[in-house]
C-alpha cells in the first residue's frame, strides 16, 4: 500500500538522520524512562499513518518541520538558556555576564540602553535620563572591549538586541574579536537587525524603511562571506505580541516581515540559499499554553512551505525556522510579583513543547524594574528545573498528535496565512507598515484585551481577582544615577585619546559610500569602529544621508 510504504521509508530516513545526529551530539542518556521504568522513545508516532500525517507533521528534522527542526531535539542537547541582560556601564554588565556564565547559562544576550539603540551618544541631548537605564550604554569600541573583557568570543555565542544601528554594533563585535585574536568566521551569535517590527511595535527606528532595508541586506551579504556562523537577523514577533497582538497576528506579521527581508535580499541580487539559512526568528511565549505550543509548530510549517514552495529554496537549511523564545513580559503583574515565577514556568514549558532553540525566562520583578541578581537567578533556575527535572525534554514533540494541539496548529496556520495573503495584497510588509495596517490591527487587539480585563471577562490573578490588599514591596534593582555622568566622562576621554584625523577620514568615506546605493557599507563602518568612532557619530552621518523616520 502506497501510504504505508511512504511512511516507513520516511521513518527510516529519519531514523538514519537521528543516528547520525546522535553520533555528533550524543543523547543525554542511553535509555530514557519514566519514574515507573516505562521506556520513553525518541519519537512517539501514530499507530496507523495517513497521508495527512506526512504532509502536515512528518518527522522531526524533516520538511515541513512541524515536529521540530532536529531529528533528536532535546534528547541530545537542551535548548540554549540565554538570559537577556544589560544595565548601566559596560563594566557592570560584564560582571553580570560572567556571573550568569558561572551559573550555567550557555549563551549571552546583550540589552543595550535606548540611546545606543537609537544611535545617540551618551552626551547627546536626546539621551538625557536614558543612559544605562534599560541596558548597557555603548558609545565606542572601548565600551565593547570592557563588555566582553575576559569572555573569549570563540567560546560563547552572543545575541545582541540591536536593530537600527545593528551594523555598527556587529562591527564592534568583530573588532573586539580581532583584539582577542579571534577571526570573524569563528564568531557565533545573533543580531536582532529587524527594523520592520521597530516601526510596528518596538519604536527604536532611526532611518526610513528603504535605507534601513539596505543596511540589512548589506549585513546579509557581508556576513555570508565573512561571518558564516552568525545569524544575521532575528525576525521578531516578540514585541508585536507585547504590543498586544494575538498569537495568530504574532506569527502572521513576523513571517510577513520575514518574507519582506527575503524579497529585499533577492532584489539586491543575493541567492536565496546563501542567506536564508542564517535567518533566525524570535517569538513570545504567552499565557495560553496549548495555543502557544501550536503557534510555534504552525510557524515552522508555514515558513518551511513558504521557503520551499514560494521561494524555491533548495537547501533544507533554508526551510528550517529556528527561533529564540522569551516569556511574555506584558503578562507579568506588578501585584503579587512572586506569582510571576509560576507564569514564567508555564510559558517556558510551552516554548519547550513548541521546540524552541533558545529561551529567555523573565524575572518575577520585571513589571517593576530591571531584575535583581536574585530574581535573574530564579529565572535561570526555572529553565534548569524544566530541563532536568520535568522530563519534558525526553521525547521529541511530546504534544504532537494531540487532537486538540493539531487542531489548533491547523487553525493558526490557516488564519495566519489569511493575514499573510492580505499583506501580500497590500504590497508586502514594508508597504503595510508604512500604511499602518499592522499597527492598527495590533492596537485593536490590545484595546479589546484591556476591556476584557476591566470587565473581568479575562481573569488576571492578583490584578482583577484574588487581590491582596496589603502588599510588601519587593527589593528592586536600581541603576545608579551617577552613571550617566561617568559614561559621558569616559566618552570624552575616548574622543580626546583617539586619532581624530583618522576618524574624520572614516566618516567622510562612510558618507560617500552611503550616497551610492550599490555600495555595501559594512567595511566602511568596520573601519570607523576600529578608529573608535562612536555609535552616535556613525549614525549621524547616516542620518544626514538617509533622513529620519518620524512615525505615521
Amino acid at each position, binding site marked *: 500500500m502506497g501510504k504505508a510504504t511512504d511512511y516507513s521509508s520516511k521513518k527510516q530516513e529519519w531514523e538514519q538522520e537521528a543516528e547520525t545526529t546522535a553520533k555528533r551530539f550524543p543523547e543525554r542518556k542511553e535509555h530514557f524512562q519514566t519514574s515507573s521504568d516505562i521506556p520513553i522513545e525518541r519519537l512517539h508516532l501514530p499507530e496507523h499513518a495517513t497521508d495527512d500525517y506526512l504532509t502536515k507533521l512528518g518527522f522531526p528534522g524533516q520538511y515541513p518541520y512541524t515536529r521540530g527542526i532536529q531529528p533528536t531535539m532535546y534528547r541530545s542537547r537542551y535548548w540554549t538558556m540565554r538570559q537577556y541582560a544589560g544595565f548601566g556601564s559596560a563594566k557592570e554588565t560584564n560582571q553580570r555576564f560572567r556571573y550568569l556564565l558561572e551559573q550555567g547559562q550557555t549563551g549571552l544576550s546583550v540589552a543595550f540602553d535606548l540611546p545606543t539603540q537609537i544611535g545617540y551618544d551618551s552626551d547627546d541631548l*536626546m539621551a538625557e*535620563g536614558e543612559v544605562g*537605564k*534599560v541596558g548597557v550604554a555603548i558609545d565606542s569600541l572601548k565600551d565593547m572591549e570592557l563588555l566582553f573583557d575576559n569572555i573569549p568570543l570563540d567560546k560563547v555565542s552572543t545575541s545582541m538586541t540591536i536593530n537600527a544601528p545593528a551594523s555598527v554594533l556587529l562591527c564592534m563585535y568583530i573588532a573586539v574579536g580581532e583584539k582577542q585574536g579571534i577571526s570573524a568566521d569563528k564568531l557565533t551569535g545573533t543580531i536582532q537587525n529587524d527594523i520592520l517590527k521597530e516601526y510596528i511595535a518596538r*519604536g527604536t527606528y532611526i532611518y526610513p524603511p528603504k535605507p534601513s532595508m539596505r543596511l540589512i541586506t548589506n549585513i546579509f551579504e557581508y556576513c555570508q562571506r565573512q561571518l558564516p556562523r552568525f545569524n544575521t537577523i532575528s525576525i521578531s514577533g516578540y514585541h508585536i505580541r507585547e504590543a498586544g497582538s494575538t498569537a495568530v497576528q504574532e506569527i502572521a506579521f513576523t513571517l510577513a516581515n520575514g518574507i519582506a527581508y527575503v524579497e529585499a535580499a533577492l532584489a539586491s541580487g543575493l541567492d536565496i540559499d546563501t542567506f536564508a539559512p542564517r535567518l533566525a526568528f524570535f517569538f513570545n511565549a504567552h499565557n495560553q499554553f496549548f495555543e502557544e505550543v501550536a503557534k510555534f509548530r504552525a510557524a515552522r510549517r508555514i515558513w518551511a512551505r513558504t521557503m520551499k514552495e514560494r521561494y524555491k529554496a533548495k537547501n533544507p537549511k533554508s526551510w528550517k525556522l529556528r527561533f529564540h523564545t522569551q516569556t511574555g513580559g506584558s503578562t507579568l503583574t*506588578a501585584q503579587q510579583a512572586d506569582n510571576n515565577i509560576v507564569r514564567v514556568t508555564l510559558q517556558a514549558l510551552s516554548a519547550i513543547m513548541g521546540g524552541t532553540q533558545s529561551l529567555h525566562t523573565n524575572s518575577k520583578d520585571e513589571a517593576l524594574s530591571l531584575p535583581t541578581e536574585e530574581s535573574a537567578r530564579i529565572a535561570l533556575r526555572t529553565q534548569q528545573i524544566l530541563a532536568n527535572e520535568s522530563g519534558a525534554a525526553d521525547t521529541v514533540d511530546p504534544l504532537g498528535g494531540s487532537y486538540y494541539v493539531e487542531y489548533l496548529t491547523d487553525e493558526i496556520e490557516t488564519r495566519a496565512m489569511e493575514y499573510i495573503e492580505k499583506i501580500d495584497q497590500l504590497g508586502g510588509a514594508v508597504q503595510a507598515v508604512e500604511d499602518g495596517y499592522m499597527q492598527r490591527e495590533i492596537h485593536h487587539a490590545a484595546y479589546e484585551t*484591556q476591556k476584557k480585563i*476591566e470587565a473581568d471577562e479575562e481573569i488576571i490573578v492578583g490584578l482583577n481577582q484574588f487581590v491582596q490588599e496589603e502588599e510588601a514591596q519587593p527589593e528592586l534593582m536600581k541603576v545608579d*544615577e551617577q552613571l550617566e555622568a561617568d559614561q559621558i566622562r569616559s566618552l570624552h576621554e575616548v574622543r580626546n585619546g583617539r586619532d581624530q584625523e583618522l576618524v574624520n577620514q572614516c566618516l567622510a568615506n562612510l558618507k560617500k559610500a552611503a550616497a551610492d546605493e550599490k555600495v555595501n557599507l559594512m567595511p566602511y563602518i568596520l573601519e570607523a569602529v576600529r578608529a573608535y568612532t562612536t555609535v552616535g557619530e556613525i549614525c549621524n552621518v547616516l542620518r544626514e544621508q538617509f533622513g529620519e523616520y*518620524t512615525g505615521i
Partner: protein
Amino acid sequence: MRQIRVLIGKAGLDGHDRGALVIAQALRDHGMEVIYTGLRQSPQQIAQAAIQEDVDVVGLSSLSGAHRSLFPKVVEALKERKADDIPVIGGGVIPADDIPFLLERGVKKIFTSGTSTDSLAEYIKQLVGNGEAVAEPPSKIAHIGIAVHDIEQAIPFYHDLLGLPLEKVEEVPSEQVKVAFLKIGESRIELLEPMNEQSSIHRFLDKKGEGIHHIAFEVDNLEKRLAHLKKQGIDVLNETPVVGAGGSQIAFLHPKAANRVLIELSQHSDRRDD
C-alpha cells in the same frame, strides 16, 4: 460643558506605547478629546503641544526608567511657559519608591500598573470638571480619636502631665459620645466616652478595650468627596455628612478601605473660630 482635552505624551526614547495607545483610546471612549504626541518627544515639545492644543491635562507614559528625569522636566517646561495650571499625571513602569519624588516635583498623580482605564477617566473628570477641590488631598490630621471609659479620668494624663491645652468638652448627639479636645500642634487629641450602650464607642470598648479608635483627616468639599469615593468602590459608613463636634461636617469610611484603620473625614464648620 466643553469636551475634556487630554494630551498623552511619550517623553524620551522609550518605544513602549501599548499603554499610551490603550489609554488614549479608552479616554476617547469616555468622550474626551485625546491628542497623542507619538514617540520620542522632548519635555519642551510636550509642553509646547499641551499649550497649542489647549489641553486640560497632560498624561505621560514611561517604561524605560527615565521618568525621574523626564516627568519633572515636563512640569518645569509648562511652568516656564506660564502653563503650570495644566496638571501633569503619569504612569508606566514606575517603582513605588519613586512616586513621592515625582509628586514633590509637581507631578499631580502617578497611576501604577493595574489601574483601570475607568478609574483613570473618572479621575480626570474630577480633576478637570470640578476644579481642584475634590482632587486636593486632605490637608492635615484634624485629630486622633481615643476611646476611653471615662473622660474625667483620662484628662489628667494628657492635660496635667503632658501639658496639652484642653480646648473643650462637649456632647455629640449624632454619635452618642462625650468628647474632649486637647490641642497638639496644628492637630488635636480627641478623647471619646460613650454616652450610653447604643454608642459605637461603647461597642468598641466592649470588644477591644481602650485605645486609638480613629484618625480624622481635615478635608474640604466633603459631600463631593464622599460621592467620589463611593464611585471608586470605597465603603462609606455615612452616605452623607453628619454633624460632628464643634458643628463640623463629618463622615466615616469603612476600615477595610484603609488597612483596618477607621478614617473620619472632617470639614470645618464656618462657625468654628480656630
